[in-house]
């Protein structure tokens, strides 16, 4: 099952390397968002850590949705999903392979977006990098798991381009709240909330819950 998921993830990464259809659009979107908000907030005059943290996380989530809209595009082109559904592998492997690819796309996008955000919003100082990176990695996993599950759900719908954000964005709200809190806390400010787990513990718990949920339901979601 893991082997099949890795094989599918590899296929999607190879396709992206050859066609550059998803990551390039995501990069343009996230960079444009960060630059526009930077000038709108006059960040060089001090936008404040909470505004900067919120801006980063809003950009990450909306950019992720852009990628998720293409999560099963390669399978839709020539009906490859039929071949995957009939292959003698656990159908969770189809979802997991796509989720791993989405995770890879997000990491690549953030390798550009986070330094740009840092450069534009914090000429001096800035947050502690490690908690921000940890929060981004944990949130990326959650977004990829939930988003790919939602993309699978929306697959057969005529209005999937509208349906997918409607499904994903409410589910991503807890991730954004925890991410903003972790990022704000990395400035040495009191973020508040999330109890004894803290925002990073909450993000890890979110990932575990949705990993189990998606694993258990993907067999039924991806079929007829």
């Amino acid at each position: 099952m893991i082997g099949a998921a890795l094989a599918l993830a590899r296929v999607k990464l190879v396709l992206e390397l050859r066609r550059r259809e998803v990551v390039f659009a995501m990069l343009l979107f996230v960079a444009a968002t960060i630059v526009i908000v930077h000038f709108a907030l006059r960040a060089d005059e001090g936008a404040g850590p909470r505004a900067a943290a919120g801006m980063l996380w809003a950009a990450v989530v909306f950019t992720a949705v852009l990628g998720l809209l293409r999560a099963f595009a390669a399978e839709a082109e020539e009906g490859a999903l039929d071949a995957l559904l009939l292959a003698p592998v656990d159908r969770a492997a189809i979802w997991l392979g796509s989720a791993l690819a989405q995770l890879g796309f997000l990491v690549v996008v953030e390798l550009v977006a986070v330094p740009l955000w840092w450069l534009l919003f914090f000429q001096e100082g800035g947050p502690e990098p490690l908690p921000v990176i940890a929060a981004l990695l944990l949130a990326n996993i959650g977004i990829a798991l939930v988003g790919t599950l939602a993309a699978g759900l929306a697959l057969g719908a005529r209005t999937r381009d509208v349906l997918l954000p409607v499904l994903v964005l409410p589910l991503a709200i807890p991730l954004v709240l925890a991410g903003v809190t972790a990022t704000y806390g990395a400035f040495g400010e009191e973020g508040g909330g999330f109890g004894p787990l803290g925002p990073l513990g909450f993000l890890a718990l979110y990932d575990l819950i949705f990993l189990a949920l998606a694993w258990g339901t993907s067999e039924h979601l991806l079929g007829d």
Partner: protein
Amino acid sequence: MQPPAVTLEGCSKRFGERLALRKATLAVEPGETVVLLGPNGAGKSTLLRLAAGLLRPTAGHARIDGVDAVDAPRAMRAGMAYAGHRSQLYRGLTARENLALHARLHGRALDLDAALAAVGLADRADERIDGFSRGMLQRLALARATAHDPVLLLLDEPASGLDADGRALLDGALMDGHGRRTQLVASHDADLPARLGARAVRLDAGRLA
């Protein structure tokens, strides 16, 4: 007693307002080849997708070896193949990469060169298939469907887009499988049943004749 390889019992399928298949009942015995004939829109593709377990019937049952087709376990899926109107391949991969993925998902070490040579694509093996013609895609889809030597082969108008050589290859593959595996083939070629020595079943406006 061994159940039929494919069974449809009063199978109907509705897409919104349209009833694509009406109470179809059909049994295909193990090793038998059945050719589904009928005009466009008769319900041939719907019947094949129900038999493959890719669609759930609105009413009735579709079974493979006596097991509900939608719930066919992995071991059963390992022995079947379905090729539809679309090639079911990844357009950004090469022909060889597509077959390698198929082999990987089936957990089989397949001779990819032999599989590609069998459909006349040996010299195009390392080309990305987004430059392939419809006929070449059909050939590769046939290679994908037969490479793991399935015991149940479901083909939906496999000759569409094929040239004369391609049709000869297809006939050869179907004749090779005749009696050795169960084959259910949708076709517009009224002569195909006679050429294969197969049973012909006619489908019209969603009804089996």
